[in-house]
């Protein structure tokens, strides 16, 4: 942008220097000079990575031959900075990690993306919810694809979370110093299941309605907090003040329950899950990156138990 006045100035300069007489000649000369300048400037843009714009976005020049730059490409990038600059050479072998943790996170992103798009077409009210789904399926461009993708990504996320957990157990990756991160992971598993469950009611069809009815009926039986649970009656619990009432915002699965599950599904649980995810990823780095493949330890090298 700031090039323009600059050009004008030089154009004026050249004309005054030559001192052409006719107006046509002045314009012609000015034109050739401008063209010349433009060509020369364009040559400067041939290397995209050398432009001001590029440099302002990517803080480090990407020189593949320079190891320092490769590291900086990771460290100075907001999306990649959770990665270390270097990792164990065997850790990138697929059979070790199965990639399930990363895929789970990617699915969370897919779900957020499709979920936000779905929110544009959905009203969490008894009058509209079911019709909005029909509208999505039949009228919204790619609406059916959007809904299908959201549902299947959710199912897939439950599976990948379990497989991730299974891998962590098989490789003993929950061991010191990663015990706490395992606990964070368990919380994330529960949140994943709750996210799926709260989403189940939203289409407001028979499937979701009865699944949530069955699910929340169990809450009735919560010890001490449920109207039908042990010691519930003794503590003054009724169907109108117990924990199930709190979950549903009423004594039956109705409009309040729809609104509550909508808010938990779209705002509450994703927020909490994001915080736990941040901690989960942060702790991976702080605990020394992914656990292996580590060199095997031998029974004969087991140290004696430390006495505190």
């Amino acid at each position, binding site marked *: 942008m700031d090039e323009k006045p600059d050009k004008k100035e030089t154009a004026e300069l050249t004309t005054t220097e030559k001192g052409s007489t006719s107006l046509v000649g002045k314009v012609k000369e000015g034109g050739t000079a401008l063209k010349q300048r433009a060509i020369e400037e364009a040559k400067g843009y041939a290397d995209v990575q050398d432009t001001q714009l590029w440099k302002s976005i990517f803080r480090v020049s990407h020189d593949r031959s320079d190891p320092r730059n490769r590291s900086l490409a990771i460290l100075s990038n907001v999306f990649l900075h959770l990665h270390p600059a270097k990792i164990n050479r065997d850790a990138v072998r697929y059979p070790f990690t199965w990639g399930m943790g990363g895929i789970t996170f990617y699915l969370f992103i897919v779900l957020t993306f499709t979920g936000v798009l779905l929110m544009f077409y959905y009203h969490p009210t008894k009058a509209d919810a079911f019709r909005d789904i029909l509208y999505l399926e039949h009228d919204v461009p790619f609406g059916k694809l959007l809904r299908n993708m959201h549902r299947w990504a959710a199912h897939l996320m439950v599976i990948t979370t379990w497989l991730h957990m299974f891998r962590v157990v098989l490789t003993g990756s929950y061991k010191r110093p990663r015990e706490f991160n395992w606990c964070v992971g368990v919380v994330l598993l529960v949140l994943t299941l709750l996210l799926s469950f709260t989403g189940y009611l939203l289409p407001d069809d028979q499937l979701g309605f009865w699944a949530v009815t069955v699910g929340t009926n169990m809450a009735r039986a919560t010890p001490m907090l449920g109207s039908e649970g042990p010691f519930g009656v003794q503590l003054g619990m009724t169907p109108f003040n117990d924990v199930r009432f709190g979950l549903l915002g009423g004594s039956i699965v109705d409009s309040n329950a729809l609104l509550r599950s909508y808010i938990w599904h779209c705002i509450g649980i994703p927020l909490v899950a994001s915080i736990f995810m941040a901690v989960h990823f942060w702790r991976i780095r702080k605990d020394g990156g992914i656990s292996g493949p580590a060199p*095997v330890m031998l029974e004969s090298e087991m140290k004696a138990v430390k006495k505190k």
Partner: protein
Amino acid sequence: MAKLGMSKGKLITLGVVVVLVLLAIFFVQDWHQLWVISSAPDNVPIVAMLFLVPFFTWLGIRQSRANDRLIDQLEEDPKLAKAHHRKAEPWRPGWAREIHVWPYLVRIEFLATVIVTVILFVWSITLNAPLEEPANPNLTMNPSKAPWYFLGLQEMLVYFDPWIAGVVMPSIIMVGLMVFPYVDANPLGNGYYTLKQRRFAIGMFSWGFLMWILLIVIGTFIRGPGWIWFWPGQTWDHNAVVFDKNVDLHDWIATSRIGKTLHLGFLSANPWKFIFGLIVVSGFYILGALFFHWLMTVDWKRLSLRPLRLFPQDEFEKKLLARTSLLQYVTFQFFAVSVLLAMPVKLALRLALTIKYVWVTPWFNI
């Protein structure tokens, strides 16, 4: 040797597949019913899991075997143990131990996202998310099933009262999972696949994991209208009625032939009913703990029935037990008996002996 072992494994797999196919051919009466259940869009993930879980289990076991062979080799040869890079993965001198994340990891991650995206697109184009009729509180769905990942919980409702199945058990499972790393006192096997060095820890987790999947499979493929047990391939009969003659354990004993000859009728009335249940549950915890203790230390290779040797102890497992603190041991036993053992025992009592409760009190029943 390795080749022979592999072909043996393949032979067993083949045998299992053949038996399953034969069973299916002889016992499936209604293929359509089976297809209806397994092709229900929301059930497709479980069908996928039936393939994914065995595949990844195999992948894990294969790497564990490779590491276990290496461990054996290194244990035998201390000199090699000092010089070896100690991984089953190939290694050559001069290779860097670490590689750059850019591009060697980032490109894999990128590829993974592309593959997952393609899978999702294909899946979403070919299969529609289910949508039933509008919610109607006056028309109960039968069977009324939770989403598949909660069917384990729903299936537990058959065996336990709702406050246990729906509230206490899930909480215990959650806390039990969190406690897992803190009760595992084994310092070996941190960051590599191994079965040999961690057989008990892996065995316990797999037991829980497989039990959970089994409950889900029962809930999905076997439970039909009225939550009645229909074998896979049996037609779901909406008019089927099962006359459950479930009895409580104290009544079962009191009214049995032995109970009658021994005049145990008093067990059916309080306070004996209560005391009896208390003794049964306490006895279960004690026997369960003994069972897990045996499982923890037993040397499978020396275990035999012929020259009766039921309690041979494994030296390595004994060492691990010595490292386990009392708190770790008691905590593990509590969770193991309460979930890992209580669940299958109650399932067997209910399905095989039609027993409903083992402990009946005025406040709660177990």
